[in-house]
C-alpha cells in the first residue's frame, strides 16, 4: 500500500519534465549562438548535466552533509535520538536505519538526504535536539524518514542538479554574449550576415530564455518541494500516530528567529522548514520552498478523527474549506483507520526529565552541548571546588588553573 504514494508523483514527473525541457532549450540556443549548431549546444548541456548528476548521485549526500558541517553519531552518543530514529524506521517500513547526523548549530532545523532508502541520512541541529520533547522529536524524525521513504530525497536531488545546470549554463552564456557584444567581433555575425531578421528573433528569444530559465526552473523546484512537505507531514502523523507531536515541534521551530549558518538557496528546500526565512517575508508566495508553518500546524491539529492519510485529507479540506485533496484517494484508501495515541510524558533533552525546575532544565540543556563537545574531542576535568573544566583538543599545557578557587588541576 505504501508504494501507492507514488501515484502522487505524476505531477512531480511533469514538473521535472518541464525543468528538463528548460535545460534542453537553454542548450539549444547556446548552440545556435556559439557554434552555429543547435545539436552542439544540446550535447554540451547534456554533458554538463550528466557529469553533475553522476557527482550528485555518488557523492551528493556527503557533499550536502559536509556543506552543512554535520557530524555522524553512533547510538552511544545520543541514545534517545537514535532510539527515535529506529522507531520511525520500523513504523515506516524502511529497510535500513538511516545514518544519523548532528549539525552543531543553535538554529532549529532538520533534513534528510541520500540516494535511495537503503543509503540515506537524517541530520538534525543540536539546537533542535535540545529544545524538543520526545514526542516532538518523533514527529520531526517521522517527517524526515517520510522524505526518505517517499523517495523525495532523490527527487529533490535530481531537480536540484538540473536547476544547477541551467543556472551555470545561462550564467556563462549571458556573460559570453555580453562580452561578445562589447568587442563587436562575433564569428556569428560575419559568417551569417545575410538573414538579419530571423537571426534577430533567435537572438532575442535566446536572450530572454537565458534570463528567465534560471528563475522559472527555481519556481518549478519550489513547487515540487512544497507539495512534498504535505505528504511528509501526513506520513509523519501516520507513523507516530500522534499529529500533535509534529505540530508543536513545527511551532517551536517556526517561533525561533535564528538562521541556520550553513544553509543556502540551493539546499533550502531540503530542510524541515525553510532555513532562510526572514521576518516580514510573505510566506505563501511562489518563491517559498515550504507551505507556511501556521497552515501545516493547523492541518495537523485538525486531525481529530485519527492519524491516517484520509484523516489528513479531511483536515486539509477543513483548513482550506474546499474540495481539494492533498493526498490521492488511492493512497489514502489503502490504509485502514489509525487511532491517535496518548501523549508521552517527557521533557526536552536526552534525559527527558518531566520537570520544569530551573536546575533540571539547566542540566538537560548541557546534555546536548556536552554531546557536541565529546564529538569535538574535548576533555573534561572536575575541580574539587565544584567547577568543571572542558578543555579543547588544541590545549597544550599540562595543567589548568581553576579561576574559581585558585587550584591547579593536572590534565
Amino acid at each position, binding site marked *: 500500500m505504501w508504494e501507492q504514494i507514488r501515484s502522487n508523483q505524476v505531477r512531480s514527473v511533469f514538473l521535472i519534465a518541464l525543468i528538463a525541457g528548460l535545460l534542453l532549450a537553454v542548450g539549444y540556443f547556446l548552440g545556435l549562438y556559439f557554434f552555429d549548431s543547435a545539436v552542439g549546444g544540446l550535447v554540451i548541456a547534456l554533458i554538463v548535466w550528466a557529469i553533475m548528476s553522476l557527482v550528485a548521485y555518488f557523492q551528493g549526500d556527503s557533499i550536502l552533509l559536509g556543506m552543512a558541517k554535520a557530524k555522524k553519531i553512533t547510538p552511544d552518543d545520543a541514545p534517545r535520538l537514535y532510539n527515535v530514529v529506529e522507531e520511525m524506521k520500523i513504523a515506516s517500513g524502511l529497510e535500513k536505519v538511516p545514518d544519523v547526523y548532528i549539525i552543531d548549530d*543553535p538554529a532549529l532545523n532538520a533534513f534528510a538526504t541520500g540516494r535511495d532508502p537503503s543509503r540515506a541520512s537524517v541530520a538534525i541541529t543540536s539546537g533542535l535536539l535540545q529544545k524538543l520533547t520526545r514526542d516532538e522529536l518523533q514527529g520531526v524524525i517521522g517527517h524526515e524518514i517520510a522524505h526518505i521513504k517517499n523517495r523525495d530525497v532523490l527527487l529533490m536531488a535530481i531537480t536540484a542538479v538540473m536547476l544547477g545546470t541551467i543556472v551555470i549554463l545561462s550564467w556563462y552564456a549571458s556573460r559570453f554574449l555580453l562580452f561578445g557584444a562589447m568587442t563587436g567581433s562575433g564569428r556569428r555575425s560575419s559568417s551569417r550576415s545575410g538573414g538579419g531578421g530571423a537571426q534577430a528573433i533567435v537572438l532575442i528569444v535566446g536572450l530572454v530564455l537565458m534570463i528567465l530559465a534560471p528563475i522559472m526552473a527555481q519556481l518549478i523546484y519550489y513547487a515540487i518541494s512544497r507539495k512534498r512537505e504535505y505528504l511528509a507531514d501526513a506520513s509523519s502523523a501516520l507513523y507516530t500516530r500522534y499529529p500533535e507531536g509534529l505540530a508543536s515541534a513545527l511551532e517551536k521551530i517556526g517561533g525561533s528567529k535564528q538562521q541556520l549558518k550553513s544553509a543556502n538557496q540551493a539546499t533550502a528546500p531540503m530542510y524541515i522548514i525553510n532555513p532562510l526565512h526572514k521576518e516580514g517575508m510573505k510566506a505563501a508566495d511562489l518563491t517559498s520552498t515550504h507551505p507556511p508553518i501556521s497552515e501545516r500546524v493547523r492541518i495537523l491539529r485538525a486531525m481529530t478523527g485519527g492519524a491516517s492519510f484520509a484523516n489528513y485529507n479531511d483536515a486539509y479540506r477543513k483548513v482550506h474549506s474546499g474540495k481539494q485533496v492533498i493526498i490521492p484517494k488511492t493512497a489514502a484508501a489503502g490504509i485502514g483507520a489509525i487511532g491517535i495515541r496518548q501523549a508521552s510524558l517527557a521533557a526536552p533533552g536526552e534525559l527527558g526529565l518531566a520537570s520544569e525546575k530551573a536546575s533540571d*532544565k539547566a542540566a538537560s540543556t*548541557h546534555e546536548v552541548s556536552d554531546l557536541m563537545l565529546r564529538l569535538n574531542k574535548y576533555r573534561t576535568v572536575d575541580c574539587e571546588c565544584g567547577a568543571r573544566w*572542558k578543555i579543547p583538543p588544541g*590545549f597544550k599545557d599540562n595543567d589548568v588553573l*581553576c579561576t*574559581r578557587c585558585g587550584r591547579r588541576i593536572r590534565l
Partner: protein
Amino acid sequence: MLCPVCHQDALIVEYQNIELDYCPACHGVWFDAGELELLMGSAGVEDFQRYLEGIVRAPEVETTEKKHKCPACNHKMKKTYIDRDNKILVDVCHVGDGIWFDGGEVQNLIKELVEKSPEKGASQGVLAFVGEMFKHQTD
C-alpha cells in the same frame, strides 16, 4: 568557541550547571545568552527576554577600545555599560547572542564587588557570578 580577541579555542568552565567560555590567554569571558537565561531562571528572574533586550538596546558608548566580533554570529558587537555606575564596559552582540567581558573588565568587576556591598539591579546576579568564577586569575 574561538576567543573574539585572540582567535584561539577558549576553555569552558561549568559551575552549578552554568557554562562560561574563558580565554586563558587574554582572560576574557563570554557569557552566552542561553547560559544567561539559565542563570536568571535559577535566580527566579521571570522576564529574561526583556532583560536581554534592555542590554542589546542600551546606548552605544564612544570609546577607543577595539571592537570585537561576536563569537556566535560573527557580526561586530557594540560597547555598552552593563552596571549601574557605568564602570564595566562590555561587548554586546547586536542580536543578543551573548555578552563578552574583556580580561580587564573582569578585573574591574571583581574590584567593584570587593569594594562595594552588592546593590540591587538586574545585572547584579550576572556580575556576581562572573566575579565569583574568575577571582583567581593568577596563582
